C-alpha cells in the first residue's frame, strides 16, 4: 500500500535579492522531492547548497518564488499545515530568561495544546530529552548540548507526527550526537516521520531510510539509502610483488598513483576490468592477496555528486 505523502515539494524556486536595486539571485532551481509517512529522510548537501532555505520554505519562514510546497496536503502558507509538525532549528535561540519548563509551557500554549495536559506533557518531554534535572534552570545557564536538546524538546512538546530537524547534531560531542541519534531512532520507532537537514554523513547512513542530495540549489540525487550501493559494482584488488613496469602501466591506465603500504597496493576497479587486471598481474609475476567488493559509502556518492555539479565537472 502506498504510504501517505507528508512533504511534497514540486518545482520549488527561490530567488533572493542581495540588496536594494540589485539583480535577483536564484538559490533553488526548481527542486522536487517527497517524504512519506514513517520515513527518516536525510536532506544533505554542502554548505550553501540550499538545505536551510528549503527547510525555511517548508516552515513558512521564507516564501517560495515559484513551485508547490505542501505539508500533510496543505499549502505551507496555511499556518494550520504546521499543527502536526515540530521544527528544531540549527543552533536554536530561545528566551534565555525562561527556564526549561517555562519555555516548553510557552511553546505548548502556542500550539493550542489542551491547558490541563500541558504540565504533564512538559515533564514527559523534559524526561525524553534528558533535561528533567535542569527543568528549573534558566536557559542562559544551559550548555550548547542542552540547548540543542531543549530545541528538540520544543519541537516535540505538542506531540507532532512529523519532525523537521536542522543540523540536529551540529556542535555536539560524540556522546551528545549519539543521544540525539538514539532519540531520533526512538521517535521514528514510535511512528514519527523525521526530516533531517545535515552534512554529517555517518549519522545519515546510520538512521536515514532515504536521502536527497542538494548541490547548488538542485537535487543531484534522491532515493533509498540502500539503492545506491548497487549502482556501481567496484572491487578493491590487493596485489603484492608488483613489477615496476607493470605498476607504471596500471597507474597510467587508472590515471592515478597506486595506493598501498610497503609491497602491497590496493586497486579500486570496476567489475568489468577486474578479471583482466588480475590475469595480467598474475601473468607478470605479481601475487594476488585479496579481492573484496567495495561497498560505496554515502560519502563517496556525496562527493561524486558535488564534484559533478562543480564548474567543469561531469554532470
Amino acid at each position, binding site marked *: 500500500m502506498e504510504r501517505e505523502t507528508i512533504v511534497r515539494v514540486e518545482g520549488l524556486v527561490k530567488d*533572493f535579492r542581495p540588496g536594494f536595486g540589485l539583480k535577483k539571485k536564484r538559490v533553488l532551481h526548481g527542486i522536487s522531492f517527497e517524504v512519506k509517512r514513517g520515513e527518516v529522510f536525510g536532506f544533505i548537501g554542502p554548505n550553501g547548497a540550499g538545505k536551510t*532555505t528549503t527547510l*525555511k520554505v517548508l*516552515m*513558512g*519562514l*521564507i*516564501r517560495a518564488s515559484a513551485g508547490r510546497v505542501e505539508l500533510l496536503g496543505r499549502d505551507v502558507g496555511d*499556518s*494550520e499545515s*504546521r*499543527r502536526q*509538525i515540530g*521544527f528544531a*532549528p540549527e543552533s*536554536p*535561540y*530561545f*528566551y534565555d*530568561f*525562561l527556564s526549561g519548563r517555562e519555555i516548553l509551557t*510557552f*511553546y505548548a*500554549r*502556542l*500550539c*493550542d495544546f489542551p*491547558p490541563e495536559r500541558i504540565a504533564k506533557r512538559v515533564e514527559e518531554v523534559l524526561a525524553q530529552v534528558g533535561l528533567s534535572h535542569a527543568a528549573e534552570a534558566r536557559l542562559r545557564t544551559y550548555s550548547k548540548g542542552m540547548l540543542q536538546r531543549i*530545541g528538540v524538546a*520544543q519541537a516535540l512538546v*505538542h506531540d507532532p507526527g512529523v519532525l*523537521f530537524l536542522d543540523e540536529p547534531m551540529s556542535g555536539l560531542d560524540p556522546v551528545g550526537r549519539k543521544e540525539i541519534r538514539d532519540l531520533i531512532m526512538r521517535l521514528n520507532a514510535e511512528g514519527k516521520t523525521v526530516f533531517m537537514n545535515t552534512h554529517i554523513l555517518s549519522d545519515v547512513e546510520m538512521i536515514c531510510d532515504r536521502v536527497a542530495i542538494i548541490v547548488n540549489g538542485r537535487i543531484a540525487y534522491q532515493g533509498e539509502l540502500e539503492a545506491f550501493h548497487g549502482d556501481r559494482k567496484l572491487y578493491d584488488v590487493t596485489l603484492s610483488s608488483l613489477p615496476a613496469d607493470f605498476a607504471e602501466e596500471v597507474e597510467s591506465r587508472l590515471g592515478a598513483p597506486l595506493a598501498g603500504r610497503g609491497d602491497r597496493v590496493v586497486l579500486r576497479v570496476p567489475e568489468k576490468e577486474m578479471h583482466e587486471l588480475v590475469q595480467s598481474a598474475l601473468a607478470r609475476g605479481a601475487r594476488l592477496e585479496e579481492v573484496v567488493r567495495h561497498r560505496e559509502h554515502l560519502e563517496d556518492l556525496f562527493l561524486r555528486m558535488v564534484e559533478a555539479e562543480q564548474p567543469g565537472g561531469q554532470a
Partner: protein
Amino acid sequence: MRGVVTAIAANTVRDAVRNRVLYILVFFAVVMIGTSVLLATLSYVERERILQDVGLSAIRFFGVAIAIFMGVGLIQREVERRTVYTILSKPVTRARFLAGKYLGLVATLWLQLAIMVAAFVGVSLVAGAPLGVGHATALGLMALELAVVVAFATLFSSFATPFLAACYSVGLYLVGHLTRDLRGIGAGSESVAVQQVTSWIHRLFPDLSALNRSIEAVHGLPIPPAEVGLAVVMGTAWCFGFLLVAVVVFERRDFR
C-alpha cells in the same frame, strides 16, 4: 486562537520587566515628577499648576521615550535573536504574532504608566494640588497616545533596523504633534494650494495633539466629552491602521 496571542503578549511583558534599562527610565521619570515640587517652589504664583505641568510632561516624555525605545526593537530583536523561527514554525500566523507582541508591549507601558501616575498623584496630594476628572481624562488619552506610538513603532520595526525605526518613529511623533498647528497656519494663508497641502498633511498623519489634554487638566478647563470620544475613536483607528499595515509588511517578509 486567543490563547496564542495571550501567550505571546504575556511573554513579551515578562521579557520587558526583566529589562533593567526600563527600570532606570521609570526611576528617572519618578525622580522628575518628584523634582517638580522643587521647581514649583521657585515660583510665587500657580505653584500647583507648575508642579502638575512638569509632572504630566515628565510622564509623557518618559512614556513616549520608553514606547519608542521598546517598540522599535519589538520585531527586529525577535528576528535577530532568531526566536521568531521557533514561534512562526508553530501554527501561529504572523498577524497573531504581531498582535501578541504589540499587546504585550502596550500592557508593559501601561504598567509603567501606572507607576508614574501613582508618583504624580502622590506628589499632587502632598503638595495639595487639585486632582479631578480632567486629570483622569488627560492620563487616559496619554495611555491611548502611547498605544498609537507603539503601533507605528511596531510598523517601522517590522521592516527597518532599530536605528532607522527610531528615527522614523521620532519623526512621526513630532509631525503628529504639529499637524494641527500646521493646518491652522495653512488656513490663514491666502494660497489655496498651501491650504490644501496643510489640510492633507493633517488628514494623512495622526493628529497626536488630539490626545494631549494636559493643559486643560492642569488649568482646570473643561474637556468636552464629544472631543474625548472622537479622540478615542481616532486613536483606536490609528492603532488598527498602523498594525494592519505592519501585518501586510510582515507577511511579505522572508526570514533568511
